[in-house]
């Protein structure tokens, strides 16, 4: 008897919960009378950078009452994302924005939607072939190269560098490494220690601790993202030899809540922005939906944030 009651109460709660979520959507749909519905499939909202992307999209969309954006989070699974694209197609949305987890698996579903006449904007990571409407992304190789050149400049052309890499099975990790190697080419900068930190701060902290115990002279740390650079800084501080003040820490991404704040606090020497393209995606979407032609490829620029320019919003490179 008691169990039946628990089941009933739980079921009522779940029904209410779903109804609550569903209703909200129905209400907004009626109130705003959006002319166009845009489906946005984000590959993984576990990453702050992607949370920022959705935020940028939502903010840009707010200025356009004629559009309504339906957000979905694929939780880092390609198969889930494939399903989401198919669902958007079934739902009959007017345009799809997708930030794919992986190019190959999403190529098919994106092409299917595109062939069915739904414009698709691909954000950040490409899909194969050319069956999409527009790709908006930043250039990781260029960002890596700029970081390399910057290090050459501030270290005077030589020094020992620790590289804390992002997930090296992912293209951004590979490209940020490749660009950096191009940037330091010809200088006497040596990478004395490198590790795959999978973009995660705790991993970076542990790896940096190992690097610190192995090498007496470390001049700079190049981390593939800001949290890793921050983790490296924390490791140096925990060591207690004051090395966090002499080592230069460089990060990438420059999210307002992470990298930019770290630069302002004097933790990082510099961070390079990896733009989300959220705002540009909505602007492009509006153009597509109102029948204008858009370029097939839009490459976003990067900005550098240092202590000197952080309050002015960084400098474009």
């Amino acid at each position, binding site marked *: 008897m008691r169990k039946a009651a628990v089941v009933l109460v739980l079921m009522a709660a779940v029904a209410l919960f779903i109804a609550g979520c569903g209703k909200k959507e129905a209400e907004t749909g009626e109130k705003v009378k959006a002319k166009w519905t845009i489906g946005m499939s984000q590959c993984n909202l576990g990453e702050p950078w992607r949370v920022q992307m959705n935020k940028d999209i939502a903010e840009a969309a707010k200025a356009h009452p004629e559009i309504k954006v339906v957000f979905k989070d694929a939780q880092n699974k390609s198969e889930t994302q494939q399903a989401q694209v198919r669902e958007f197609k079934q739902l009959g949305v007017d345009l799809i924005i997708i930030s794919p987890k992986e190019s190959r698996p999403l190529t098919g579903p994106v092409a299917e939607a595109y062939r069915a006449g739904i414009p698709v904007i691909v954000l950040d990571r490409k899909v194969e072939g050319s069956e999409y409407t527009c790709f908006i992304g930043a250039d990781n190789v260029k960002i890596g190269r700029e970081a390399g050149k910057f290090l050459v400049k501030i270290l005077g052309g030589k020094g020992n560098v620790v590289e804390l890499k992002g997930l*090296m099975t992912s293209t951004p990790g590979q490209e940020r490494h490749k660009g950096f190697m191009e940037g330091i080419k010809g200088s006497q900068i040596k990478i004395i220690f490198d590790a795959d930190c999978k973009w995660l701060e705790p991993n970076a902290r542990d790896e940096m601790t190992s690097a610190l115990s192995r090498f007496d002279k470390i001049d700079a740390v190049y981390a593939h993202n800001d949290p890793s650079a921050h983790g490296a800084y924390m490791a140096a501080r925990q060591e207690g030899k004051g090395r966090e003040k002499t080592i230069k820490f460089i990060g990438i991404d420059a999210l307002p809540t992470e990298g930019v704040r770290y630069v302002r606090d004097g933790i990082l020497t510099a961070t390079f922005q990896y733009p989300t393209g959220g705002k540009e995606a909505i602007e492009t979407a509006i153009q597509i939906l109102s029948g204008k032609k858009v370029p097939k490829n839009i490459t976003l620029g990067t900005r550098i944030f240092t202590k000197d320019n952080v309050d002015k919003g960084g400098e474009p490179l």
Partner: protein
Amino acid sequence: MLRKRKSEGVTSSADGSGIRALINTLDAYRGIAAFIVVFLLGVIFSPRALDTGRPIFVSFRTQLDILYEYCEYGLLATGMTLVILTGGIDLSVSSVLGFCATFFALLTIGYGWDIAPAVIVVICAGFAMGAVNGALISRFRIQPFVATLAMMVSARGLAKFISGGIKVQPAAEPWYRCTESTPYFYLWMTKSLPGIGVQPSTLLFLISIVVMAVVVKYTTYGRRIYAIGGNEEAARLSGIRISWNKILTYALCAGFAALAGIVNACRQDLGDPEAGTGFELEAIAAVVIGGTSLMGGKGSMVFTFIGVLIMAYISKILSLNAVPIAPRMIIQGAIIVIAVLIQQQRRR
């Protein structure tokens, strides 16, 4: 559970109580009741297509999609049911899936093997990993949780090792035989078959679970795993070769994980060494929701099928409604509790 139901049926007819028998019959269909509840939730909360205004959830296409999206979990759950029936657990299925997906992609895309030999070799590799699990558990008396945890870690490492840490896709390495597109088999596995609309991947799952349902119910092997899960000591004393049957069970479980790995490679169109991370919990949840007891000896393949359907429907309903991840996880947790409560046999 099957045995218990049977014995209860006997007592009730002996008592001559019709009501008791009716309750028992209803009991047997609790899983289906839970499934119907979930299905109704789906119908009620289905969003309507913006152009035609028809509810999306009830379309045939969506129903097929639901099965397709859960076929990997389904394959894992099929094997997992066998292991759980013996009173064990297999955490390594997710990594075996990842290894087999990578291995299959490496053989076909990298070395340019034909599909048939590649499939056979990959399944054998899966069997071997499962056999190692089984041997560690039955011969060396390592607890299933620990032995398969070790396999989970090392199989993942092996996947990264054979692929060199990258995703195996055409032209990823200069020496790969495939430079542009994957073999046609990859597309075929994920494309609807003409006429019936079912994807071969889904079909593979359906066939697997039907075959295993028959095996579990009607063969000596099936009766033996129930006996081992029910009371291992008694099973041993009655002459069942425990270690052999356990090794076979874990090998079968990993074999299904290998099939799921091949499906995964086809669906992703590449071999991802990280594929399947976390899938083992989804598979265990499907088995438990179906009503199979983690203590072993009670449950059935039919229950697992219902469990897989329940999980698949819940996930589809939430996805169609674009429910954000935070409430989604809370709802999923609550529904697991509800389903298990509905499933539970009355104690007395």
